[in-house]
């Protein structure tokens, strides 16, 4: 491993015909950190994950995972990582325990000592399965068929499989999409716990709050490229001290928007789905001006939300678009 880096992505490219899914992406993930790839759908996050998991061959470039090249040492890479795919990938006609047992075997776990570089961590596959069931909170349902599980339970099992062989790196591809807040909370807590135990986590998401809450470093992606990279504070500095104001108005009015664009202190306005997002110097100063213009134009402002500078604002600033499902 080079300089304590768990993952080193070196100028990765991936084309699918004329579609350039990943264009010259490079970043490093420090060992023991949580690193997020943040971007909207179609940004190329899953493609990068697939390359790092040795499912897709890069068109160009390479990456090192725990010092192993994805091009030249795929098996070593796979042994070092645990992948939590975005879609639930379980055998629904097997029980939770049967799933874990099978996947454990695929990771080389057996009843006896492991043939791994690392020292023996647990006595048998069966014991490890018990441990993981405990971690994901499915001990009581271990004999139940997965087909009968709720969505949240399936997601937890989906994560548990990746933990079986205690990988050094866990790659999680948008694990909280489409789930209830409580389950999401559980997953985020699990990620932090894994990290506390020393596991490096590469986490992809299009939810800014998750990236903000979890990550030591964030790479913001759009259209196959990393458009910004750094810690949360470093990224937020890109938008400076700009505040973000989300507004809705009573009627569409190009005149009002034009007036607002010309208003002092307003840097950027985007309109999407009836919502207006503005980046302004100081919301306390700019907001009254906005109200005044609207009143003069006979338009009512029906809702206002003010946000401190965040990653969403960074994305908006860099791309001119909101970080929402597209």
């Amino acid at each position, binding site marked *: 491993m080079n300089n304590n880096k768990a993952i080193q992505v070196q100028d990765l490219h991936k084309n699918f015909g004329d579609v350039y899914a990943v264009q010259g992406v490079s970043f490093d993930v420090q060992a023991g950190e949580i690193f997020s790839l943040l971007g909207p759908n179609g940004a190329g996050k899953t493609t990068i994950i697939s390359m790092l998991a040795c499912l897709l061959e890069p068109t160009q470039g390479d990456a090192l995972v725990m010092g192993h090249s994805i091009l030249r040492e795929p*098996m070593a890479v796979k042994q070092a990582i645990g992948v939590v*795919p975005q879609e639930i990938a*379980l055998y629904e*006609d097997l029980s939770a325990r049967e799933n874990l047992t099978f996947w454990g075997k*695929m*990771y080389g776990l057996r009843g006896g000592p492991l043939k791994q570089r690392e020292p023996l961590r647990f006595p048998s596959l069966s014991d490890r399965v018990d441990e993981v069931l405990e971690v994901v909170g499915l001990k009581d349902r271990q004999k139940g068929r997965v087909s009968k599980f709720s969505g949240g339970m399936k997601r937890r099992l989906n994560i548990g499989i990746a933990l079986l062989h205690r990988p050094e790196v866990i790659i999680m591809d948008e694990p909280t999409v489409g789930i209830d807040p409580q389950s999401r909370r559980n997953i985020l807590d699990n990620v932090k716990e894994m990290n506390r135990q020393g596991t490096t986590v590469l986490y992809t998401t299009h939810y800014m709050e998750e990236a903000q809450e979890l990550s030591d470093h964030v790479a913001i992606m759009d259209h196959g490229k990393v458009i910004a990279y750094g810690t949360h504070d470093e990224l937020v500095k890109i938008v400076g001290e700009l505040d973000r104001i989300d507004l809705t108005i009573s009627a569409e009015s190009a005149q009002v928007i034009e007036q607002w664009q010309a208003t002092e202190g307003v840097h950027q306005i985007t309109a999407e789905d009836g919502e207006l997002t503005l980046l302004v110097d100081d919301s306390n100063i700019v907001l009254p001006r906005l109200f005044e213009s609207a009143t003069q134009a006979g338009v009512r402002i029906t809702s206002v939300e003010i946000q401190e500078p965040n990653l969403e604002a960074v994305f908006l600033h860099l791309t001119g678009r909101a970080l929402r499902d597209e």
Partner: protein
Amino acid sequence: MKIIDVALKDMLRSFRNMFFLMFGLGVPLLMSGIFYFAFGGLGGDGGFEVPQTRVQIVNLDEPVAEYGDFSAGQMLVEFLQTEELSDLMAITKAPDAASARAAVDDQEAGVALIIPAGLSASVFDPAGETAIEMYQDPTLTLGPGIVKSIVSQFVDTLAGSKIAANVAHERLPEQGVTVDAAILQEIAMQYSNWSFSLGEGGADALLDVRSPLGKKDTDQMVGIVGLIMAGMMIFYAFFTGAASAGTILQEEESGTLARLFTTPTPQSTILGGKFIAVFALIAVQLAVLMPISSVIFGTDWGAPLPLALAALALVILAASFGIFIVSLLKDTRQSGIVYGGVMTALGLLGISSVFTMNVPYVSPIVETLPLIVPQGWAMRAMRLVMEGGGVSDVLLTVGVMLALSLVFFLIGVFMFKKRFA
């Protein structure tokens, strides 16, 4: 070993899958059971139950006074009403021809026999010719066929007497014999007596029937159901092969295949394990169906060694073909068409000899056509073994099956490797 783990996982899933249990085991037994039931297997003595045909008979024949009120028509009626024929025919006398025909039209009888007026007279008239009308239900073939063969025997006796009398009438004058009615009657009577005594001797007096060498003397019903069972087993073995191989597509769509590829398990191990499961499932299917059908239907599968060869070749061929077919598909949606359409059509073609075994004269095309599909070769091997063939008889067919298997398997592996490259 991981390859065995993958295979065992697939097998476990298949055993929990209703589709496999139903089509791999349930339906073949069900269909054979239906045929077993159809041919009188339940409650009977195991023999082929020939159906009883309802026959309406009208005797319009008038006795010939000058020949002692001889009535051929009455003789025929009495003959058909004998105890020995009661299992084959239920005779009802109809008042007239119209009502006899109407009974057939109304499906109250399968056959109406209308004995013409002047039957007896025509026997004694040198120039006399006549015919017994057999009016039959067009949806029936077996029953009318049996009635016809029985009545033909009787008619041939009469015809023979008449021919003897006619020939005597023509030829005796050449010998200077004056032919009169008495002489003709005497000749006719002697012929009839000879004919009836011949009839009493049965077919053994005329023919010495031998089975072709190697053909087993099997109970016909058991033989029929046995072949049906073999056909069903082959048909559904290929289904199992395709369905098991099709789990590759299912796993691809559900994401578990991609997940498997993220583990430190070589692709060849993953696919190899799946292929092993395909072979193993078909082997299990055969291992269950064969003994069960032997016990329930009395199926005689043949000598052990040629049977083992044929069965092994079937397992390998069905599995390889399944892998090959699935390798050509894009997704599980297409597999529905494959199972429902392609495999069914190919399977039916391959086992079509099961349907033609009771059909008189089958065109050579129909006999050979099944060999364009792998199921046809499997059926051929099974038939050879079940009809008493030895290892040398079945070796060529098994060889062809294995060669086909190799081709299918290699193409399948190549296609999958390309797909997952």
